[in-house]
């Protein structure tokens, strides 16, 4: 029964999709059933799995780099109040910047292929993780640092045994946002600078006006993103009420 609202929401969304399909015609919007059938036929091709693999590896690298870099930099800036205050407006500004604008620069630095895809994903995902980590540390009750000092912990021990567990919930919220943005970054990267990956596949479908394939890819990505998000939410709830 706990899942009932989700099921109703899903049914309403499907009904909206179907009615939009009926309103504008199959050339503008494939029906849910046609999209699912197209997705099934796409998944039966070995070629599709090559594209999925390319996107998955680029995404995994980006997310790893964004998480490690974001948490590490966020801790440094969160612990040093002055550095944090200096950096925050600059970071907020970078967050609001349409990063597509910097795309040519990334491409010229990293070339076509995995490097620029990963760089683009990290650019999107790192800043939210950093900001969440930094703000969590700023609002940390001082007793944590005092107990670390009274136990004479080394800096890395303080970070690993005291700070990280204390801010795990906020860091995870940041990673949840970073997860979504990294995926977006990798896909946009693939749209322009790649011969492989789901973004490239979507771009070719876009060029060919193949709406069914495009929606099938969107459906696949949405399922992946929503599942990842739900898992992270569940881990987050577990961290807050173990």
């Amino acid at each position, binding site marked *: 029964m706990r899942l009932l609202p989700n099921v109703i929401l899903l049914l309403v969304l499907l009904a909206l999709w179907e009615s939009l399909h009926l309103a504008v015609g199959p050339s503008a919007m494939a029906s849910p059933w046609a999209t699912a059938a197209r997705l099934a036929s796409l998944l039966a091709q070995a070629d599709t799995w090559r594209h999925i693999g390319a996107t998955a590896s680029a995404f995994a690298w980006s997310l790893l780099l964004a998480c490690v870099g974001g948490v590490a930099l966020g801790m440094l800036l969160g612990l040093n109040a002055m550095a944090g205050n200096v950096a925050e407006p600059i970071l907020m*500004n970078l967050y609001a910047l*349409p990063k597509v*604008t910097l795309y040519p620069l990334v*491409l010229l630095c990293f070339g076509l292929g995995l490097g620029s895809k990963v760089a683009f994903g990290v650019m999107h995902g790192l800043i939210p993780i950093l900001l969440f980590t930094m703000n969590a540390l700023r609002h940390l009750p001082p007793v944590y640092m005092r107990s670390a000092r009274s136990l004479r912990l080394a800096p890395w021990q303080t970070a690993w045994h005291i700070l990280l567990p204390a801010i795990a919930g906020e860091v995870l919220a940041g990673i949840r946002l970073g997860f979504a*943005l990294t995926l977006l970054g990798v896909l946009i990267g693939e749209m322009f600078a790649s011969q492989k990956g789901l973004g490239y596949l*979507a771009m070719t479908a876009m060029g060919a*006006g193949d709406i069914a394939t*495009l929606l099938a*890819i969107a459906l696949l990505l949405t399922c992946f993103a*929503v599942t990842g998000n739900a898992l992270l939410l569940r881990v987050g709830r577990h961290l807050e009420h173990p």
Partner: protein
Amino acid sequence: MTKESVIRLCVVVGFIALVEGLCRTGVIGATVMTAPSQMASQLLRVLAAGTYNHDIAFSFINIVCAAVLAVVAGFGLGVVIHSLPRLRQALEPLLSSYYAVPTFIFYPVFIVLFGVGHGSIIAIAVLLAIVAMITATLSGLDRIPAVLRKTARVMRLSRARTALAIELPAALPHLFGGVKLAVAYAFIGVIASEFILSGAGMGYAIAYAYNQFDNANMYALMLLVLLSVTLVNGLLNHIDRRLQRRQQR
């Protein structure tokens, strides 16, 4: 000026000087990046000549329309959803995982629906920005202290008066956080859609210059986008700080 903003200024100026130096000495080649001073002078030149005026106007009309639509509709929907707890409970999973969906992938659908032009670009930007506003409205309305509503009842204010004189001012700082995000997402949505597929706009002009290996104009336009985002952000932050201060008084 506080000590922090002096240091921040030094960091930014130092960074620009570093890039300038690296470009001038040839460590960063001219094919990769033009020096910041050249970007600025080229930007002034194209602005004076009016080469990109049409694209700049196109983008800004899109951004303003998308931001206004997202803020107004997001606020309205937020109020409606807040007043219907059952609906809100059902929508909660959608709202919490909304940004995990790569919205840009639906851009071609909008192109088929609205054609290449203002319509589809504004639609995608609104789609990206509206949920931030809805979420901010919900949390703003949630955080109105119960005592304020009690005061309204004590004073026997009508429902409309309560909303205008008590609830709106109390929720305003949170709402403004949503406005800030909505504007940022409107910028991102508009420039990125123009970059992907469009016949006009700053995003399109950057993509076009990139395809022509026209680094001078490309970097001038990138600087223009960077400057406009910084300016708009700075303005919104300034208003935000004033609202927060009023709240603390």
